[in-house]
């Protein structure tokens, strides 16, 4: 397992190099010259050229890329073109809100999804099962901005239970977390249901019944742990989507997180911030994937060896 983790960490390096390159190329292709934007409207060609040299934008793209990678390995993500602050500081100021949002949302995804899935599976074809599965079907296809705005309208504007926007207290977290976590919860619910239904048909569940165990012990002790493997995979995948979704939800709820930072930076052609933000987001993403794989292997080792 240890060797496996080390190998996976080493494999991250080319992946991250690739990510940086792709962002570089994309930013090259989008119209708008950061030098022009920075020098301001109606600046002379000379000023703009000077600005370019200063930013290193006159260098060939591959040289820029190499320089950037070299700096990153020294722990330097560059300086924001807009604020002149180190990109690292800009990101660290925004990251906690995003991580909190992501954790709260994944909590919604896992807890809501698994409870709904277990109820559905244990009461197969009941009214509860059908209701949950219909909601789950809708939940997957619901656009998150629509869900977010509906929740704000209902719970913040009408009922005034939660703040409309911003970040800081647990009250701020609830609606964004539901907005972001619902689609995942719906998928996890469906996966939990099918995985549990598969497990409860297994011979060892019959054995557990023949021992005289009660239903709840059979479901939560004997079945759930076996049903977990595909659920972990789905939760891992959901975490990826969820990180992408933070951008939208941060906009809807006016949360100053990493997603908004990157979006604003793209608008301003603030290349170092875009680059750094995407890099940090990618690192988080790759680590989460690694964590999921390790968990998966842990739960799956008996099956592997069989």
């Amino acid at each position, binding site marked *: 397992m240890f060797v496996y983790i080390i190998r996976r960490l080493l494999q991250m390096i080319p992946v991250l190099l690739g990510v940086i390159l792709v962002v570089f190329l994309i930013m090259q292709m989008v119209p708008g010259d950061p030098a022009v934007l920075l020098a301001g409207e109606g600046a002379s060609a000379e000023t703009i050229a000077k600005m370019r040299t200063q930013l290193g934008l006159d260098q060939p793209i591959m040289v820029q890329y190499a320089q950037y990678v070299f700096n990153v390995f020294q722990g330097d993500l560059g300086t924001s073109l807009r604020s002149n602050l180190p990109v690292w500081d800009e990101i660290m100021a925004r990251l906690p809100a995003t991580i909190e949002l992501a954790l709260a949302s994944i909590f919604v995804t896992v807890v809501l999804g698994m409870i709904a899935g277990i109820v559905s599976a244990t009461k197969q074809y009941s009214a509860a099962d059908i209701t949950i599965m219909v909601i789950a079907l809708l939940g997957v296809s619901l656009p998150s901005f629509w869900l977010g705005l509906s929740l704000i309208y209902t719970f913040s504007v009408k009922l005034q239970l939660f703040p409309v926007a911003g970040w800081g207290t647990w009250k701020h977290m609830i609606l964004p977390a539901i907005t972001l976590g619902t689609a995942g919860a719906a998928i996890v619910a469906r996966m939990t249901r099918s995985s549990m239904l598969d497990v409860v048909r297994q011979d*060892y569940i019959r054995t557990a019944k023949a021992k005289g165990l009660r239903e709840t012990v059979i479901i939560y002790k004997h079945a759930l742990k076996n049903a977990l493997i595909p659920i972990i995979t789905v939760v891992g995948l959901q975490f990826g989507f969820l990180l992408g979704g933070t951008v939208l939800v941060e906009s809807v709820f006016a949360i100053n997180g990493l997603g908004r930072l990157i979006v604003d930076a793209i608008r301003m052609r603030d290349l170092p911030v875009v680059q750094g933000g995407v890099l940090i987001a990618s690192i988080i993403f790759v680590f989460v994937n690694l964590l999921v794989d390790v968990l998966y292997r842990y739960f799956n080792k008996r099956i592997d060896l069989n």
Partner: protein
Amino acid sequence: MPEQQDIILDVRNLQTHFFTDDGVSKAVDGVDFSLNRGETLGLVGESGCGKSITSLSILRLIASPPGKIVGGEILFKGQDLTKKSEADMRTIRGNEISMIFQEPMTSLNPVYSVGEQIAEVLRLHQNMGRKEAWDKAVDMLRLVGIPSPEKRATQEPHELSGGMRQRVMIAMALACRPEILIADEPTTALDVTIQAQILELMKKLQVEMGMSIIMITHDLGVVAETCDRVAVMYAGKVVEYTTAQNLFANPRHPYTVGLMNSLPRLDEDVEELQAIKGNVPSPFNMPVGCRFAPRCPHATELCNTKLPELLAYADGSKVRCWMYTSEWDGDTKTATEVGV
């Protein structure tokens, strides 16, 4: 046949049906047998005749829907299990009546140690604490002949061979010293040498613990080896019930005779083996008369139109066949008529 008070389990006209989209499957539809303390009863018949459903019905483990016990009685120490509450049944399962299954590879939970799986049943029924239950679990593993039981107890099922796993299942089933052990084809999935060891172990533990065994099998060799009495099932019904000795010496029901003829004998050529011709009827669409009639060499008009009852001889043997009644209309008038 034994005295009345020796009977620990008395199954009377048990009927378990499955209500499916394709119709009603009468999987078990008239099963009668009684089991005495300390004896081994064989439940024999071709695959699909309802042996497993019968045993799951006794423990009330039939999934409902689609299954349901629609008739009959299961008297365990005089009390009808079909009328017990689910909570009452839970105190019986794994405690007074235990069961082991055909599939040792898949019958243990893959994510818990075998020690934990045995200890769990002791904590549940014997009010043992964690430590005490674990120690008892290790003792049970030793009892069923598993070497270095302390170490084995901590292992998960995938680390054990099929024979070992069946030993673990036996240890688990016997941990609470049940009065009845139901063994559903316990050796079918194992190779021959392991089969013999497992049967030997069960016999030994039966003597030590004084329990009764219901041995479900389609293998008459296993019957000859282990059983005191036998119930032969065909298409959901018991068709013959007698001592193992009687069964081999003097099989009465034409289906039993067919089973005997399909056994390889040392003194005969393999080519002369007679398998029973034809197929088992579909449980969705049973013949109106004797269920064996489409395959029976003696079938008459009476057999095809009217279902024979399970009738008892004076010695307690039972047979479900028109041949042994005064109404018999065929030519082979058999020697002994059923004395009701």
